[in-house]
């Protein structure tokens, strides 16, 4: 299994540009999450999904959108990039609650700079 994969690894955007951060997992996990990590800080939840077609906002959703058309993929969309969105973005996935395994598995991250 490749686990959780994210592309691209790095990206520089100009203010106002848009982009999609890709995330895929091959573990057949229903639950997927997007986090951002600012320098020297912990992870903050942007959006999450509990299955295909079901998404919900996390702690810091403003400026982002998500979709979940398949179990495997959970892309994160930035429509009008702002300098405040400069961060490292992590995608994670896990098995549903009650299946025994509670850990979230993380991807390697996408480092985004908005200038």
């Amino acid at each position, binding site marked *: 299994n490749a686990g959780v994969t994210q592309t691209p690894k790095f990206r520089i955007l100009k203010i106002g540009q848009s982009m999609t951060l890709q995330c895929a997992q091959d573990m057949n996990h229903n639950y997927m*999450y997007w*986090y951002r990590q600012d320098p020297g800080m912990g992870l903050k939840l942007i959006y999450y999904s509990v299955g295909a077609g079901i998404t919900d906002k996390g702690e810091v959703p403003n400026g982002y959108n998500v979709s979940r058309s398949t179990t495997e993929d959970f892309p994160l969309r930035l429509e009008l990039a702002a300098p405040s969105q400069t961060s490292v973005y992590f995608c994670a996935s896990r098995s549903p609650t009650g299946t025994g395994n509670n*850990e979230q598995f993380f991807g*390697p991250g996408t480092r985004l700079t908005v200038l």
Partner: protein
Amino acid sequence: GESVGLHLPTLSVQEGDNSIINCAYSNSASDYFIWYKQESGKGPQFIIDIRSNMDKRQGQRVTVLLNKTVKHLSLQIAATQPGDSAVYFCAEKSATDSWGKLQFGAGTQVVVTP
């Protein structure tokens, strides 16, 4: 430990010594706790977890202790090695959450010196 702003608390440990990393959590309704290790430029990796009905759990070279009375979690690493140098995060899940959402602390930087 927890941090404010850009400066992570740092724990400097000599190789071979034991490390203790502390975490104060905020929600008395949390029922699940987890420790992650994050090496520079990588995503967080699972180390160990514990449910609120336990107060201690051991893994390979790691032990997690949970004190619900004072809402404190600690991670002990035995015989610390250079490969243990990383940022360590604790995270908690509320018992009222059905979707596995985690609340992360700010992290502690562990530096292992020879």
